[in-house]
């Protein structure tokens, strides 16, 4: 069973746009992180689809690097959110606009 690559690209585009809209609309930092994860996954799906369409293994290797960077980003971001939460109640993105401790 071979689904054409364009459908995977369409799904990836829809996922990316949902993530982008969520990132722009929501103000909770955790939800924004989840939207970033969704966008990263859409890009991963695009990479794998092009790796199949162009018949090149390099796309899949790049997805590996993207996964590692996403993991590191989530670790640091969640640590930041936890430390923000310790200091003040709530983690809306507007509260931390002052870059002060």
């Amino acid at each position: 069973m071979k689904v054409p690559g364009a459908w995977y690209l369409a799904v990836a585009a829809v996922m990316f746009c949902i993530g982008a809209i969520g990132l722009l609309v929501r103000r909770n930092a955790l939800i924004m992180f989840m939207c970033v994860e969704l966008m990263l996954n859409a890009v991963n799906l695009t990479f794998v689809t092009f790796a199949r369409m162009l018949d090149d293994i390099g796309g899949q290797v790049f997805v590996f690097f993207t996964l590692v960077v996403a993991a590191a980003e989530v670790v640091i971001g969640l640590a930041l959110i936890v430390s923000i939460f310790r200091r003040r109640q709530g983690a809306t993105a507007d509260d931390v606009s002052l870059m002060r401790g």
Partner: protein
Amino acid sequence: MHAALSLVLTLFSVAVFFVLQGAHFLAAVQVIVYAGAIVILFLFVIMLLGIDKEDVLDEPLPAQRPLAIAVGVALFAGLLLFARILQPTGASADRGSATQGDVANVERVARSLFTDFLWPFEITSALLVIAVVGAIVLARRGGPGTSLDDDADVDLPVSENGSRPHVGAGSDEGPAAVLEYEA
């Protein structure tokens, strides 16, 4: 909370897409790393902080929500437009085919990763180490560069250079607090 569970479902679906396209190694990594580690980390933070109570609904920028939706729809339209205009082309694969041949997918990825992409792979390891160190520094009680006044519930003597004395692993502090942070 529901968003996190739905994210798990979406990530599993993406893993299924990876399997359908022959990327078996990436599907396994996707399930293990994303659905198994990252989302669990999200759930830990959600339950630790207990923030699925209410959402802040007062908008300091009233035009933000429709503007954001408009930007998103415009982004989607732009993506479709580019997809109509541009066709993916590429040189013939000089670092190995992705699907064809009798070599397994894992072996292909590994062969490419440890030959062509060896230097980025090593940089990746350095990035992970830096992330771990940064998470430990951030997850310390009070965070870096803060005085002990923020820790109202611990009453500890401060040494002369302002660094925190050795704090034992208490009830609510992880092993990160055991580390001494020499400021």
